[in-house]
């Protein structure tokens, strides 16, 4: 299955993926309208800083053995047997934050419910209704890639840069 991979050398920290993700999650689907939606849409991807100012985008790794599923008391998070994607049913989420605490990558985020009467956990679903995830499409430098793991491995082995890091499941 295709996953999102990161070429660390190419991330400039522009945060374009975050904006694209939040717009994708908004009800309007349009930047100019999304910024005034209540509640504000929450980006499922976040650009983190490493060592001397380097940066990389991070979102759900869709782990093989996800801690979040084990921790979820509401049974909201499940692993799709066909695609291997870790998906959350936002309607079932009770906002206990166990998933947030157990996620080793810190990529599960908190969003206000539309009626603002509560909060739920939200996470990347790899933009299931899109061909290419919004974050990958928005990435100007090609730091974000959407491909099969084998493709990425061969890409890494071809590249001499030792900072090329495979950032995906496990």
């Amino acid at each position, binding site marked *: 299955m295709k996953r999102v991979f990161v070429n660390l050398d190419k991330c400039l920290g*522009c*945060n*374009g993926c*975050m*904006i*694209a993700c*939040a*717009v994708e999650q908004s009800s309007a689907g349009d*930047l*100019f309208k*999304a*910024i*005034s939606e209540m509640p*504000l*849409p*929450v*980006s499922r991807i976040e650009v983190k800083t490493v060592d001397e100012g380097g940066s990389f985008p991070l979102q759900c790794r869709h782990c093989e053995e996800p801690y979040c599923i084990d921790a979820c008391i509401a049974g909201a998070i499940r692993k799709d047997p066909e695609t291997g994607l870790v998906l959350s049913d936002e309607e079932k989420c009770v906002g206990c934050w166990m998933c947030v605490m157990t996620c080793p990558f810190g990529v599960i985020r908190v969003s206000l419910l539309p009626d603002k009467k509560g909060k739920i956990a939200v996470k990347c679903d790899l933009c299931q209704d899109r061909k290419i995830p919004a974050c990958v*499409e*928005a990435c*100007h430098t090609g730091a974000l890639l959407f491909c099969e793991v084998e493709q990425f491995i061969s890409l890494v082995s071809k590249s001499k840069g030792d900072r090329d890091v495979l950032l995906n499941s496990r």
Partner: protein
Amino acid sequence: MDKTKERSIDKTTQDMLQRAKELNIPTAWDRLESMLPQCGFGKLGICCRNCEMGPCKINPFSEKEQTGICGASVDTIVARNFIRMIAGGAAAHSDHGRDIIHAFMLAAKGKTDAYGIKDETKLKVLAREYNVKIDGREINEIAEELSEKFFLEFGRQHGEMKVPQRAPEKRLKLWRELGIVPRGVDREIVETMHRTVMGVDNDYKNILMHGFRTALADGWGGSMIATDLSDVLFKSPEPITAKSNLGVLSPDEVNIVVHGHEPTLSDVVVDAVRSPEMIELAKKKGAKGINLVGMCCTSSEILMRHGIPVAGNFLQQELAILTGAVDLMMVDVQCIMPALSGVASAFHTKLVTTSPKNKAPGVTHVEFKAEKAYDIAKGIVKMAIENFPNRNGNGIHIPDKSEDLVAGFTAENIYNFLGGAYRATYRPLNDAIIQGRIRGLAGVVGCNNPKIKHNYGHIEMAKELIKNDVLVVVTGCSAIADSEAGLLQPEAAVKYAGKGLREICEAVGIPPILHVGSCVDNSRILIALTNVIREGGLGEDLSDLPVAGAAPEWMSEKAVSIASYFIASGVLTVLGSPFQILGSRKVTDFLCSEAEDIVGGKFVFEGDPVKAARIMIDHIDKKRKALKLKPLMYR
């Protein structure tokens, strides 16, 4: 073919885009595609690069209020970025104006081989305005003193600029109360740069008010001076017919395209191509003659004064070269795509830069000097002629379509047109509005932008406006768009205008859309509106008038300045895509709502040109109601 149809409403352009595709030569539309999706921070105006603690980008989706490292709020950042855009636009227009004064001064001193005073009447009007003594003095003496007075408009440090005093009394009083009468063109632009440096102004309203002041120094300053002195130096335009669109290129003549903005060189090139010496040389090289055509605003300058055909507007510049029939393209400043050198290298076309302010790597540069303008112009024409035999016969594709047009309207000659030469007056125009034959006036101006289907915004908006009896005035690329659709012909009134407007157009013999010049000539619109106020019966201030403005396909910083001086002059202005301010709710509210209570005008962002026209019409109706005017004659 499908994609090309989405890209432009103009058949000629579609045809050339198809050719670009076949030849695998990328154009602005392709480059836009490669830029997508564009940066959200940039679009919202929330990225600050004004110091090296940054760049700071405010996350528009953050629940917590974020500020820059210095503490600048999102409102401060957006306002600062916005007025820097105004300053860029005001600088461009005004520097153009400055160059015209320079040529005017040299002409007065007799130090040029090309220029003289061609409109003494206008010179004397200006001299009177600037308290320059006329009686008993030579024209050149008057002109020399006047040139110094105009230079002072740029360098004045305090007090008030003279040009904005032309505004209606009530408007001027309001500007004074608000403290936004510009002191000097350069002063306001410099102050914009100062205020927006790290650690200066952080009250967004205070920042934006200075933006207005800077923009006024353009519209009622640099641009207006550029228009006035161009009229004096190159003669005031009179209605004139010509042709428009890429079909004006000739298969068997030497084709020279002048592209850019300032008439100082292009106007002299007109003389050079008409010289028997050059025509003979062209024939010797196997051409039937020399065909001079224009592109963008410099095109409007020589169209209005000499009837030189128009090859196209902003997005057609690459396409002109793609015909393979352009022997030389001469460019000066503004809106010259750096991509041109790449396109030209695929053909025999010689690209020549002429301004010390605009050079390009690997491109021939022939520096323009006002002292030897004619010599330089002849040299460039000769280069074009010598390049004619290098044309590759098979590689030529000239679209066969061009349209007739009438251009050359000015705030001054509208007097004669509507009032008749013997009782020159704005009365008939005012009466037509008062009696409801004409609903009002609209200025549709500005650029092309590949984000909006080429020419679609301009043409559809103009059609909707004239259908509803709004007399439309146009400049720049908007005027060229309309000309390509045949809307600048008197017959367009019969075809597209509402009954009341049609009656006027038929009685006077004018098109329903009046081409009033280049983008600096938007100043003509300000003067025309002022004349309408002076004529009486339609209120005391520009903001009382049943008028509206629009830039449906804007892209340049110059359009930001123009739109800003129009709202600061009290005119509602609609933009086809939003300014890069939406990242701040407060700045957006200020410019799109509160400004109306302060300066009388505001921005509206609407991408659909017909909806945008409806907004303008509603606004005009609101103003008609406030003036207690009669209902429209024909409903």
